[in-house]
């Protein structure tokens, strides 16, 4: 008997409506928008004509866009191992510790995440600026050549660094919470069996925390594919190509060319790619082993 469902829908209703209005509808609208292309003249209003999948075809031969997608792979290769690896190690250390260190540690490690992207990026940007940075000041005093951290070959690393700095604390919280949730009697049983500290970590903590790590990993991949704020802010301090990340490129196409339909198509493509990766990563359900 469908008892109580009426109340459920009543309670969830407002959220669903807002969700549909501000989330679903814009996505559908963007998909619709992406099907149009522009016919232009030099001196009149441009006309939007139905172009079918023309924008999508253009995207697949758009070197700038493809380069931004390959940059996502580069970013993931740097950000994911370091930020998650560090998060796991730090979470384990916090879990082992006790007393005031724990609270202080948690707060300190979470601090970068609480700093707004714009401020964090500017902070790091100044640390990266060759003539302004205290780091380069020291390097210069050691009579070594100054490093331009915003140079093209170092830029991905420079941005990745800011991202890692900001997110490790966030990843840490997820993993630490999972660690704290491990039943204590498992440790007692292990102690009785004569397991040392590192054996406990290897055989109990790590395996039991893997589900949480998988979730954190998923969010990290989604987040890395959508990096926008850091490169956007760094543009005021040095040269950052507008296609260094897909989101920056999507934004730039809309802002510079006012080609909203092409921008929408690129956004749809990015969303599909990320969605596909999500499905791949979570084809097996997350279960506590």
């Amino acid at each position, binding site marked *: 008997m469908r008892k109580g469902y009426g109340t459920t829908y009543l309670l969830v209703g407002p959220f669903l409506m807002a969700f549909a209005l501000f989330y679903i509808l814009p996505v559908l609208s963007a998909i619709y928008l992406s099907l149009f292309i522009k016919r232009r003249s030099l001196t009149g209003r441009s006309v939007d004509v139905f172009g079918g999948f023309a924008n999508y075809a253009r995207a697949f031969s758009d070197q700038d866009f493809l380069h931004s997608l390959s940059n996502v792979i580069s970013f993931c290769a740097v950000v994911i191992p370091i930020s998650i690896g560090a998060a796991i190690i730090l979470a384990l250390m916090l879990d082992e510790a006790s007393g005031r260190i724990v609270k202080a540690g948690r707060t300190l490690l979470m601090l970068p995440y609480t700093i707004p992207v714009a401020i964090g990026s500017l902070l790091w940007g100044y640390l990266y*600026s060759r*003539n302004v940075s205290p780091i380069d000041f020291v390097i210069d005093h050691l009579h070594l050549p100054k490093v331009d951290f915003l140079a093209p070959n170092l830029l991905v690393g420079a941005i990745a660094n800011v991202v890692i700095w900001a997110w490790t604390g966030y990843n840490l919280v997820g993993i630490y919470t999972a660690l704290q949730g491990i039943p204590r009697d498992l440790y007692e049983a292990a102690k009785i069996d004569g397991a040392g500290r590192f054996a406990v970590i290897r055989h109990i903590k790590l395996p039991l925390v893997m589900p949480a790590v998988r979730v954190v990993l998923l969010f990290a991949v989604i987040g890395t594919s959508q990096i926008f704020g850091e490169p956007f802010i760094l543009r005021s301090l040095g040269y950052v190509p507008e296609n260094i990340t897909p989101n920056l490129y999507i934004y730039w196409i809309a802002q510079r060319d006012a080609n909203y339909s092409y921008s929408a198509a690129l956004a749809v493509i990015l969303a599909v790619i990320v969605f596909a990766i999500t499905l791949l990563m979570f084809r097996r359900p997350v279960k506590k082993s």
Partner: protein
Amino acid sequence: MNYWPGSRAHNHHAEDEFKQPDLSKFHVEPGTINLEVWIWSSGFDKVVSLFEAAYPNIKIKVGNYGNDTYPKARTAFKAGTGAPDVLQVEYMMLPSFIATGGLRELSDLGGGSLQSYYVPWAWRQVSPDSKRVYSVPGDSGAVGLMYNKKIFDQYQIEVPKTWDDYAAVAEKLYKASNGKVKIGNFTATNGDWFSGLVWAAGGRFFDVKGDSVKQSLNGPVVEKVLTFWANLIKKGYVSTYAYMTPDFWNALGRGEVASGVEAVWGTGFYSSFLPAEKGDWRVAPLPEWEGNKPLVSGNWGGSSYAVTTQSKYPKAAALFCYWLNTSKQAISIYWETQSAFPTDKYANAIPELHKLDQKPADFYGGQDVFAEYSKISQGISPDWTWVPWWSYISDAFAKRVAALISGNATPKQVLDDWQQDSIEHAKNEGFDVSN
């Protein structure tokens, strides 16, 4: 492609007496009028107060959105509502705005009658076909050479008159300072800056005929200019900072860069960002490619003021634009607060613009900066137009030049790729363009 020939047929002389158009013949809509104006330069309130005092039935609201101004305007044009009455539009962005259909053509509102008040190159920017007037010329970006006299004196360097001189001076300075001081900065990330240099060299990127464009970003003049700078970059004689970054100002402030190819509006920035260097810098004409010829220069930036098609008071909006750029009061205030150098050809005759104890002249050791740039701007050829996809071209320049700087591409490769990229993009965007 016809390049503008070396003869200086366009040279005009600065006028000796200031002339202002009779603005009373421009009648506005009846009643009280509220205009919305989108300007990104700051300090505009003084100008607005002056205007409201002269025209009490018109009230002006200023919207200042900085770098967001253009995207906001484009969105408003596309949406059909929300646009201001007047929009500040840089010359190189004008074609892209004309192509939105959002700018109101002014020839039926007397816009054409103002042509004689402006320098020819500026008029060409707002009225490319000499019939329709899409905007009112505002300030200029005449390009000259700013140099640090203190450093030049210290290393006994003469102000270079030709680019050959410049290269020789670059080498002398580099060697004498053991590589610490560079002659100048190649603004690698700014295609607009580079185009000013090409303009000054007599080059041209675009040939517009009706609705179709012939584009040539890789012609011989462009290659000559880029190769010249590529050599200096390779030898380390010039730096490659992005413009207006802390790194850039820092290098100038520390005396590591001795000069800059700068537009006249740069005088405002230099005096603001380098207060400790006050009195050390001077302004000179841009070096020439051929010696002993009349001055040539190009333009970098500068803006015009356009009336939008969404304006409910086009006559009042047009009057505001006309007043802003031809009246003595507005021109004086704008130079004083913004270092905005007018394209009005009578402006040099206004005494207030030549005060040597005020900004920016006092930064330049009391040099009559306005008069210097007046001379410089006489050498700007009117034979230059832009295209709606210029922003893409400018972005692509930065990308391609990055390869040049890292030593991975030659100037010719850079320019050919630049040309290819940009044509492909323009075609994708629906424009009629060819090589």
